[in-house]
């Protein structure tokens, strides 16, 4: 079954007077129907740029320099060939946005129009894509609020009159207004306190089960993805470092960066251990170094790392020289760009 969203070889740059900033570099990512894919990375890693670039919502000076974003939703393709979002004109894009691919933005306070009532904003989303008379649309708006557990009397409210959690739920309700196939969620719970976070995440999962849409969940919080996502992709300095099923990440994270991330937060179980962060900072994307961008901060780097071409390869494997903790012969679908654990690069160093 073909994936519903197939991003291949996507590159996005920001053109600045000081040079082109390569925010996203040749990223491949797929999303299958009903799947939850987590996109993880620190700020500046390019994860949001990837999502907004794929849906062409980036403002100047952004430019998509390569790749394709193939969408296979049945509504549009009627079972035929997938359509490339990057090749669409204004009109087609407008029809595809929200109806097929919706976005839940990071800060609901900023993403909701301050001068419009909640109802009007929901109606906007509904009537832009679904042909229905006003009163039906109003009913639909009310139903959407029911979906996310907000009392109907909040329809006439303005965004600033709602609490943070409620605003985020409104965003989610709005995203589901046209019954999309894919919902991109950009750090939807980052700005909320932990308790509310839990509730909303539970709500999201429940909605996904009921309505059957796929989710691209963007966050810097890897621990969250371990629970929530089916598949996880880790980004750093505009490149994908590792992808695989969530269990693979839990059991045998391959890339040193991923392992660094996992070591950065404490576990509620098990013995106490020392928390290690990842010292250093990401490279300047105007002039990215050759090979793996993580080399300057990587405790395992070998000279070969600066020559690797960053394609994702299956985690080792056969040849035996693997980083400690990684499971040789890992499951199919667990890919990484790190040469130390992929079989092809011949290496000198063994890691302890």
């Amino acid at each position: 079954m073909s994936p519903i969203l197939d991003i291949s070889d996507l590159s996005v740059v920001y053109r600045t007077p000081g040079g082109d900033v390569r925010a996203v570099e040749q990223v491949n990512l797929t999303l299958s129907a009903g799947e939850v894919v987590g996109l993880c990375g620190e700020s500046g890693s390019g994860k949001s740029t990837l999502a907004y670039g794929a849906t062409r919502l980036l403002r100047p000076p952004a430019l998509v320099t390569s790749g394709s974003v193939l969408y296979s939703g049945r509504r549009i393709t009627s079972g035929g060939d997938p359509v490339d979002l990057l090749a669409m004109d204004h009109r087609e894009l407008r029809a595809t946005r929200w109806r097929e691919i919706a976005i839940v933005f990071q800060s609901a306070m900023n993403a909701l129009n301050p001068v419009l009532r909640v109802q009007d904003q929901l109606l906007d989303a509904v009537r832009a894509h679904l042909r229905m008379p006003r009163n039906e649309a109003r009913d639909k708006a009310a139903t959407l609020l029911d979906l996310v557990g907000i009392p109907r009397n909040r329809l006439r409210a303005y965004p600033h009159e709602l609490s943070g959690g409620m605003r985020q739920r409104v965003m989610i309700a709005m995203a589901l207004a046209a019954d999309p196939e894919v919902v991109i969620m950009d750090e939807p719970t980052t700005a909320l306190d932990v308790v509310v976070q839990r509730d909303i995440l539970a709500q999201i999962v429940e909605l996904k089960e009921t309505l059957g849409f796929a989710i691209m969940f963007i966050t810097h919080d890897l621990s969250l993805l371990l629970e929530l996502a089916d598949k996880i992709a880790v980004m750093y300095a505009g490149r994908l470092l590792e992808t695989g099923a969530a269990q693979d990440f839990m059991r045998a994270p391959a890339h040193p960066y991923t392992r660094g991330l996992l070591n950065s937060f404490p576990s509620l179980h098990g013995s106490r251990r020392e928390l290690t962060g990842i010292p250093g900072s990401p490279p300047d994307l105007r002039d990215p170094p050759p090979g793996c961008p993580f080399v300057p901060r990587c405790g395992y780097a070998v000279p070969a790392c600066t020559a690797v071409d960053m394609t994702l390869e299956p985690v080792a494997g056969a040849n035996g020289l693997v980083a400690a903790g990684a499971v040789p012969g890992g499951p199919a679908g667990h890919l990484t760009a790190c040469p130390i654990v992929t079989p092809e690069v011949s290496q000198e160093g063994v890691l302890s």
Partner: protein
Amino acid sequence: MSTVANIWRNLPLKAKVGAVLFGIFLLTAIIGPELAPYDPSFQNPAPNLLMAHPSAQHWLGTTQVGQDVFSQLLDGIRQTIVLALLVGIIATALSVIVGVTSAFLGGLWDEFLSLLSNVFLVIPALPLLILLLGYLSGRGQWPTIIVLSVLGWPWGARVIRAQTLTIRNRDFVAAARESGEKSWRIIAFDIIPNEVSLIAASFVNTVLYAIATSVALAFVGLADLNSWSLGTILYWAESQQALQLGAWWWFVPPGLAVALIGTSLVLLNSGIDELGNPRLRASRGMERVAGHRVWATDPTPVLSQLSSSRTRVAAFLHSFSRGSLLDETPAGGELR
């Protein structure tokens, strides 16, 4: 001086034009009157030289009583600019003092000063100025300067206060306070350096206001009518019916001078604005990518789509150039 060179390089074109234009007038103000062919107040009684058209002898013609308009213009530019600069300096100094201390000290003092600024902002300045100057019959330059300065600080004070409040809440100021740094030192070394562009914009605005208002006041007859400022020239032109008598050379040059000086300041100011907020530049809005116009609000452009829709001829011609995929990039940045 390299910081000055840096600032100059970063200014948008608008501001450079404004700065150069103002510089020309400034130069004129400094050396102009020395180069004036005649004493502006000298009344030449020769009848053929009364209200005379521009000629080789009198480049901008003469007034009703035979005075040389060109000389008056040169003197006028100096008077007006000097007055405006003085008002600018005094009023900006006042607004910085009031704005910064009021934001820094807070509390009742801040409330009171804010109220004062707002009241004087909302009360229309010109009628009040007319009233004040009407009573001050010693109508030399100084009453005008003082009165303009006193009414000119509230605008800048408000803006500077707002900015100071933002800065005051930042961590580095809190750190300075915690470490016991004296207030005035914090103000001088931490706060003011961060507000330089704001103060510059405020200064330019005040000078603009001073020019416009002083000219208006002079036009109504409320200035030192014995000295030559651009406004007084216009006053005399109006009262001597220059308009009705068709003596355009009398009132057009001073008016045009005021307009040009004003424009240069407006351009300079809008340039300073854009320096602080680069998003506002017109050049940032619409871009040319691979020869196509892309608006700021369009979907993100895709390189392959743009190149492919080029016409055959254009593509053919382009193949001869060594250029990159992008025809125009903001400052020559190339895509490898």
